[in-house]
């Protein structure tokens, strides 16, 4: 049997030791009328050669496309070493480091990750990761409500990723937390301070501030952070980690910095993979450390005074506190964080900045060329980072369909989530695109517009 090593002789000896007649006898405590349940839909087993052929056929069927879609998941070059090291069995097939002495590899790596992430976001501390960016935002909202004494209202602008807003709503709504969506300014594509005041009639636990926002637009993060603090609310930054190599980190926004920074870790060496597994990151100020959910690694000493690493502050967690835990979260995204840590180490501060700057320069170049086409315009007149919305003279869906026929995934149709944004395409060209790629896109785009 696949992956079962027992010989007939082994089975006989084991049953004799147990004192059972057959393997079936070991299931004698299951009531007979419940047993049975034969499997009908499970096909017969395949050999490794056969499954290899099947998976390769299906992969070829899907093929490769030139990708210009971003919208929350970004294609970056992933150095070969990242996944070669990450999939070493010692990382791949180990579990949550409960036995610290036998898990120093994972624990030290997570400590290094926490250090890198706290520095990248400009915050005091980071946890060891969340499931993804959307759930990290939901957990940040819960955290804000726990730390705010009176309010259970969270302001989330419509410039935050639309699905993040849905996820946050789904996860927090059963705890009597109110998510209030703040409209954006149609001209700038930003949150306007003036429109926020209308929402400040009641206490607010937190304001969520995306940077860049879903449209790629850069928000006025300093003013927004200060506004939140002036209303006695926390400022929660939702940020792109690659962008942080270039952009002012949340910890330095406004007078005193944002309080919590979260986001999608995927751009840091995680393949697009149809949407997962990715990882969410979460960092915060020291004052909020006991409210943060998820695993946290601390440095300590062993009996001989040698430095080592352990899971710490476990009294916040479900396996200790059960119904009083900060969250039900159990595992984090260990393997993805392993990849991200190796990625950040390989790129270093200069390399990550180059990735961010080249991605931004490529998108800027693409936007410049596209908006030179009559009838095509940049929708929002604000500075952006590595992604921007363009308005078309005709249906975005038609253009996307024609580009697809030529092997190009041309962007994301914003009408999917913003009914008011007709004929609008969100495009992103990361550092993976060459000048020739961009020229090709522009030329195919002209033809698609007809």
């Amino acid at each position, binding site marked *: 049997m696949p992956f079962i090593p027992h010989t007939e002789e082994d089975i006989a000896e*084991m049953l004799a030791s*147990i004192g059972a007649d057959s393997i079936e006898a070991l*299931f004698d405590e299951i009531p007979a009328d419940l047993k049975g349940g034969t499997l009908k839909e499970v096909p017969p087993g395949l050999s490794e050669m056969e499954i290899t052929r099947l998976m390769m056929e299906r992969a070829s069927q899907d093929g490769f496309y030139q990708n210009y879609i971003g919208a929350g998941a970004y294609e970056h070059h992933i150095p070969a070493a990242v996944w070669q090291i990450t999939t070493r*069995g*010692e990382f791949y097939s180990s579990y949550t480091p409960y036995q610290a002495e036998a898990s120093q590899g994972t624990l030290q790596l997570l400590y290094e990750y926490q250090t*890198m992430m706290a520095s990248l976001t400009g915050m005091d501390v980071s946890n060891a990761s969340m499931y*993804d960016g959307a759930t990290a935002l939901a957990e940040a909202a819960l955290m804000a409500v726990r730390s705010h004494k009176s309010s259970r209202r969270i302001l989330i602008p419509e410039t935050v990723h639309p699905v993040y807003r849905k996820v946050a709503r789904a996860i927090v709504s059963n705890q009597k937390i109110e998510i209030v969506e703040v409209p954006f300014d149609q001209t700038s594509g930003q949150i306007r301070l003036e429109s926020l005041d209308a929402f400040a009639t009641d206490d607010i636990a937190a304001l969520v501030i995306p940077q860049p926002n879903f449209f790629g637009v850069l928000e006025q993060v300093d003013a927004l952070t200060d506004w939140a603090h002036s209303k006695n609310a926390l400022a929660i930054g939702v940020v792109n980690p690659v962008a942080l190599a270039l952009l002012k980190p949340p910890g330095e926004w406004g007078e005193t910095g944002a309080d919590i920074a979260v986001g999608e870790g995927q751009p840091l060496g995680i393949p697009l993979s149809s949407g997962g597994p990715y990882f969410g990151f979460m960092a915060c100020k020291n004052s909020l450390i006991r409210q943060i959910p998820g695993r946290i690694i601390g440095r300590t000493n062993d009996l001989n005074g040698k430095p080592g690493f352990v899971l*710490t502050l476990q009294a916040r967690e479900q396996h200790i506190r*059960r119904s009083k835990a900060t969250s039900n979260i159990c595992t984090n995204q260990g393997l993805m964080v392993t990849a991200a840590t190796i990625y950040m180490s390989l*790129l270093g501060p200069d390399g990550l900045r180059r990735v961010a700057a080249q991605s931004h320069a490529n998108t800027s170049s693409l936007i410049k060329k596209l908006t030179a086409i009559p009838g095509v315009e940049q929708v929002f007149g604000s500075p952006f980072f590595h992604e921007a919305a363009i308005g078309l003279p005709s249906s975005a869906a038609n253009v996307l369909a024609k580009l697809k026929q030529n092997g190009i995934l041309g962007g994301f149709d914003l009408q999917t989530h913003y009914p008011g944004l007709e004929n609008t395409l969100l495009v992103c060209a990361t550092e993976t695109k060459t000048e020739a790629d961009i020229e090709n896109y522009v030329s195919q785009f002209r033809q698609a517009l007809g």
Partner: protein
Amino acid sequence: MLIFEHARPGRRNYSQAPKTSASVDDIPDHLLRKKQPLLPEVSEMDTVRHYTRLSQKNFSIDTEFYPLGSCTMKYNPRACNALAMLPQYLSRHPLAPEDTGQGFLACMYELQEILKDVTGMAGITLAPMAGAQGELAGVMMIRAYHEAHGDFERTEIIVPDAAHGTNPATAVMCGFKVVEIPTDKEGNVDLSALKAAVGPKTAGLMLTNPSTLGVFEENIAEMSRVVHEAGGLLYYDGANLNAVLGKVKPGDMGFDVIHINLHKTFSTPHGGGGPGSAPIGVAKRLLPFMPVPFVTLENGKYRWVTEQERPQSIGHLSAHMGNAGVLLRAYIYVRLLGREGMNRIAEFATLNANYLMAELRKIGFEIAYPTRRASHEFIVTMKDIKDKTGVTAMNLAKRLLDKGYHAPTTYFPILVPECLLIEPAETESKQTLDAFVTAMKEILDEIEQQPDMVKSAPHNMPLRKLDDVKAARELDLCWKPST
């Protein structure tokens, strides 16, 4: 030595990053970063060597026997990883149109159908990204179901005291009050306590079966009847599905909603603590509430079902579709095993557990529920040993590390004092189990002859016992450069 301590200012890798440093003069200065982040400035070889060496400080399934109870640490076939990492799967954008991903979607659809069959449920969604999120989705559906029936008085979720901590934590996250019920001395849920606990406030019962005590709930049919007659729904925590796969289906036990930990039963990697993946299965009456998206097949084409088509759905649980790469690995695993192989999982997991339990009892360990069959795991209690010698379950666990075995789960479930929860999984051979028994016997002898040595274990690991108290009191969560 930390990666940061290998760094030298100005050192960098030339091949991995863009060749030029592009200008960003269209971004206003006040939005730019002024101080470079604390990422290490190291060479590629520094990085490769550092993280390879770190990996060697881990125990893992690939290097050691890992009988961690409740975690199902079975072998993770390499083919599952290699084939899920084919470049076409890795490079597919989550928002790429469905017609560019029919091969991938076919795998997802077939996985849904297979899981439906295995669990005996009416519908499957692959969306939840981990066991705890599967629980969250399941309990959210229970709530949505009652509310859709105009029933807003059901404010309580019943949870046995042996349950995983995620169960009560999840119920609270969904706005419920947790009612805990005790276990009887045979290891079953106390049926009279359950009967006393149910009523018009009961939204549902969360149950793991076989339980975390390693035994099958013999009264499951009666429990199901009691909860359903009170108007509640039954939640199946699939943490221990490996023990009954192909023997009994949760749907046949009367469960309304279940989650399946793919990183346990379907052998996707634990990855040092994630990523998980926990598809959920539902009975017919919960179909309208399933989280989105999931895959459907229409006119020979696969496509995602969205919330527009499912107005009663509890909604989205992640930014995209869930942990696609984990789901692919589980799909490949299932196809490798096939129907026959799937039927054998529970059989050999159970054989291994009962054999190990019998052998450990023979050498003198006390079994917590000696009159019961082990499911795929069982509990040893060290209470007597601790009373006599002062040696604790944790001491024994650390001494096992010295002998090259990962420790069993310790101090869970919390209702058995000084417990070790031992789960060998079906992929281990009799010879490995025998060697483990020999190591356990050696430790028993050591406890008798030199208890202080056992108490101060580990001795042969790169580090001695680590100071958890110092870690929590003097928090050091980030490295800081010495100035």
